C-alpha cells in the first residue's frame, strides 16, 4: 500500500540550523496495516508523514502509494490518495464555514471543483447519518460554524473529513495530543472504529507509548530520522512499555530515552 524507499530530507541546508530530519527511511505498509509511530522530539515522525503528504519535496528517495510513484506530485495532487488529521484541531477544518460545508469540501477531494452547488440535498442526509454515529450531537448542528465547536469535536469532524472519501492511506499526526485525556480517548476510540469499519491502512504518530501499544497491528519507533524498531502481529500484542524503553536504549546505541513527555505518558 505504502512503500518508502531510502528517503532523505534535510532542512535549512548549509546554515547553522541545518537539521537532517529523515536520514534514509525505509518502510513498507501492507493493505490494512494500522501502524503506530513512536519516538522522541525531532525523531522525524511528523516529518515522515509530511514527506508522504507532499508538504515539500524530499531530497532523495521514492514514495509509492499503491502502484503509483507519488514522489514528484505536489501536496494537492497527493491529497486524493490520502486522509489527514493534524495535531492542531484548528488546522483540519475551516472555522468560518458550516460543519456540512467542511464535509462537502472533503467529499470532493481528488475531484475537479465545478460550478455545481457545494452541498447537495442527497449529501445532507448521508452526512447526518455519519455524524449521528459519532454520538456527539453534531447531527443536529450541521449548519453551525465549525469555529463554535470544541477541540475534540473539531478533531472528530476532521477525522470524518479525512475518511469521508475512502483514502488509500490515513495519516494521523498526533491528532489527540492537544486534547484533554478524556476527549483524547474518545477520539482515539473513534479513530479505531473508523479504521476498522472501512478497513483503512493508517499511520498514527503518537507521543504516548501506551496508545502506541494499545492501538493498531504494528508499531515502529523512530530516532534521528531513522526507523530503529519495527514490530507487528502477535509480538506487538505482548509488548510492554518497559520493552519499548529497553529497545530504544539498545537500538539507539545506549542512548537514554530523555524525553519527559514520552516517559510521563507511559
Amino acid at each position: 500500500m505504502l512503500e518508502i524507499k531510502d528517503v532523505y530530507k534535510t532542512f535549512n541546508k548549509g546554515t547553522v540550523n541545518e537539521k537532517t530530519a529523515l536520514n534514509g527511511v525505509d518502510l513498507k505498509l501492507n493493505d490494512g496495516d494500522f501502524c503506530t509511530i513512536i519516538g522522541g522530539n525531532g525523531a522525524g515522525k511528523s516529518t515522515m508523514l509530511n514527506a508522504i503528504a507532499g508538504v515539500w519535496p524530499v531530497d532523495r528517495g521514492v514514495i509509492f502509494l499503491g502502484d503509483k510513484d507519488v514522489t514528484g506530485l505536489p501536496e494537492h495532487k497527493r491529497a486524493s490518495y490520502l486522509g489527514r488529521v493534524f495535531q492542531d484541531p484548528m488546522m483540519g477544518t475551516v472555522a468560518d464555514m458550516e460543519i456540512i460545508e467542511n464535509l462537502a469540501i472533503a467529499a470532493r477531494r481528488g475531484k475537479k471543483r465545478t460550478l455545481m452547488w457545494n452541498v447537495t440535498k442527497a449529501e445532507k442526509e448521508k452526512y447526518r447519518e455519519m455524524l449521528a454515529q459519532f454520538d456527539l450531537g453534531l447531527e443536529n448542528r450541521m449548519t453551525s460554524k465549525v469555529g463554535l465547536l470544541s477541540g475534540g469535536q473539531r478533531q472528530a469532524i476532521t477525522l470524518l473529513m479525512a475518511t469521508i472519501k475512502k483514502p488509500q492511506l490515513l495519516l494521523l499526526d498526533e491528532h489527540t495530543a492537544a486534547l484533554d485525556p478524556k476527549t483524547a480517548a474518545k477520539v482515539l476510540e473513534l479513530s479505531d472504529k473508523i479504521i476498522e469499519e472501512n478497513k483503512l491502512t493508517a499511520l498514527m504518530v503518537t507521543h504516548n507509548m501506551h496508545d502506541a501499544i494499545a492501538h493498531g497491528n504494528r508499531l515502529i519507533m523512530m530516532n534521528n530520522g531513522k526507523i530503529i524498531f519495527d514490530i507487528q502481529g502477535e509480538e506487538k500484542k505482548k509488548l510492554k512499555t518497559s520493552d519499548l524503553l529497553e529497545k530504544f536504549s539498545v537500538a539507539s546505541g545506549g542512548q537514554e530515552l530523555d524525553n519527559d513527555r514520552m516517559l510521563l505518558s507511559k
Partner: protein
Amino acid sequence: MDGFLDYFGSLDPSLFVSALPGNIAQGILWGIMALGVYITFRILNFADLTVDGSFATGGAVTAIMLMNGAPIWVAMLVAFLAGITAGLVTGLLHTLLGIPDILSGILSQIALYPINLHIMNKFSNMSIRVDNYGMVFTSDSEKFNICGLVMSMRDVYTAIIVAAVIAIIIMAVMYWYFGTEQGSAIRATGANPKMAAAQGININIDKIIALALSNGLVAFSGSLLAQYQGFADVNMGRGSIVIGLAAVIIGQVIGEAIFRKNFNFILRLTFVVVGGILYYLVMGVVLWLKMPPEDLKLFTAIIVAIFLAVPYLRGKSKNSFKKVARMNKKIAKLEDESNA
C-alpha cells in the same frame, strides 16, 4: 463665538439635501467596487492593492472604446476583462514568483499607471459626454440610445436605480458562486490554506482566480463611475483601496451591530454596498460642513481608522487590565470599610 454662529448660520440644509441623491449614487458605485475588495480582503485574506490601478483601467478602457465607436456593452465587457488580466498578473507575481501579497499588489498598481496612460493614448483625462453618446436607460426619448451610456449624473435618479439593480445582480452572482464547489474551495483557501491543500485544493490557482474576479469587478465599477461622472481620469483610482476598505469595514461594523449572529453571507454582501453608501453620506456631511475638499482623503483615513478601532476597543473595554485593577481596588475598599 460670533464666528461660530456665522459659520452655522451659513450652513444651508437644503444644500445637503440636494447633494443627497448624488452621494447615494456614488455610494452604490463604490459599493460595487467594494464588493471586489471584499473578495480579496475578506474571502481570500489577501490585502490587494492592485485595485487603485485596475479601477482606473476600467474607466480608461471604457473611454477609449467609446471614443472609437464601440458599443457600451462591449466597452464594459472589455473593461471587466482588463481588470481580470490585472488581477491575473498580481496572482502570478504572488504565486509563481513568491512575491508577498501586499508587494505584488503594489507592483501591479504602479505598473498599471503608465499602462492606463497608454490605453488613453497618453491623455490623462478623457471625457465621455452623455450628449455625444446618449443613454440606455432614460425617459428622455431624445437622448435614448441603445448603445449609449448605462448611467450619467445628468439623470441621478435613474443612475441610482440602474446602479442598485447592477449591484443586486452582482451580489446574487457572488452568493451563487461562493456557494459552488469552486467558490467554496476559494473560501477554504482564504480561511485555512493548510486544510485546503490537504483536501486537494490547488491553493495557488484559487488565489489567482479570486484575484482575477476581484479586479474584474473593480474595473467594471471603474467603467460605471467613468460613465456616471462623464470622464475617465488616469488618477481616478488613487486611494480607491481605502474607500473600498472603508465600505467593507463600515458595512461590517454596522451589519454586525444590527444582525449579530444572523449576519449571514448575503447580508454581508448587502452591507458592503450599504457601507459604500454610508461612506458617501458621511463625505456629504463633511463637504456640507465646508471642510476643504482637498482634505477629503484625510477624513476618509480618519473614518476608516475609527471603524477599525471600534470593534477592537469595545472588545478591550470588556477585557482590560485596568478594569480588573479598578474592580479589585473597589473590593478592597469595601472590605476595609466593613472591617472598620
